[in-house]
């Protein structure tokens, strides 16, 4: 009697494990489908355009920084004091009068 009960219990337990195995297969199957969808959903061209658009904005900001440094430099060049221009013009006059051509 007790042995029969044990065998029955063993069978139930095996069914329980079998049920878990089925669930596991379903999970893996579901994951495979999801993976397929991820790959299929991926519209390469559109995604690339989007990423490049974002990157372009980033690089444009960087380029503007570089250009503004040059702009500052150009402004500095243009604001050279008159006394320095005077010094340079004196040098030119001296050379025009003395340079051995």
């Amino acid at each position, binding site marked *: 009697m007790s042995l029969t009960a044990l065998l029955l219990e063993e069978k139930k337990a095996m069914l329980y494990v079998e049920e*878990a195995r089925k669930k596991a297969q379903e*999970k893996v199957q579901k994951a495979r489908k999801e993976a397929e969808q991820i790959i299929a959903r991926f519209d390469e061209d559109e995604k690339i355009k989007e990423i490049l658009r974002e990157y372009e904005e980033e690089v444009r900001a960087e380029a503007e920084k570089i250009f503004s440094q040059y702009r500052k430099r150009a402004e500095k*060049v*243009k604001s050279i004091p008159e006394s320095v221009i005077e010094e340079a013009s004196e040098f030119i006059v001296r050379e025009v009068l003395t340079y051995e051509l």
Partner: protein
Amino acid sequence: MSSDAVEALKEEIWRRAREKADKILRDADEEAKRIVEEAREKVERELKSRIEPERIILRRRLLGKAMMDGRRMVLLAKNEVIEKAFNKALEKLKQLPQTNPSEYEKFLEKVLRKAVEEFSAMGESNLIIYANERDLGVLKKLVDSLSNSSVSFSFEKADLIGGIIVSDRDGRVIFNSSLEGRLNSLRSILRDQVASILFKEVEAS
């Protein structure tokens, strides 16, 4: 077999079954996670391999243009200031006979002697001296003071700010020592030195 023993065995059967089932489900979860993760990584990899070259090109193009435009802007600004210095020098040269007559006269004498030396070396003895009206008188006196009596001179009025142009009779050889001629000839020669005077502080900062 006592009923306690049977119960103990039943519990053991179920404990093992639950343990096994849990492991199967845990493994399945991990496997599922890995499958999805691999799909995402694959997409990322493909994306990266297509995007990276385009990113490099885009970056080079935009930053290259910014640098080129920037450099051109600085260069134009420098040219403007250099031009200002040369224009100022030209104004000073125009005023030189009034502001520093002795220095100007020394200059006239020096270039006249040089011209005579060079033409004499070529065997030319008839020279035409071109100068502005103001300078012709000074030049005639200077010519008289030159020891080289084998050369004869004639004078022509020219629209010069100063200095002289000397030529032989036929006008085949010309010695241009007018102030504007010298300034123009020296423009490219002096440019770097003028720039270093003008921009020494800008370059240092």
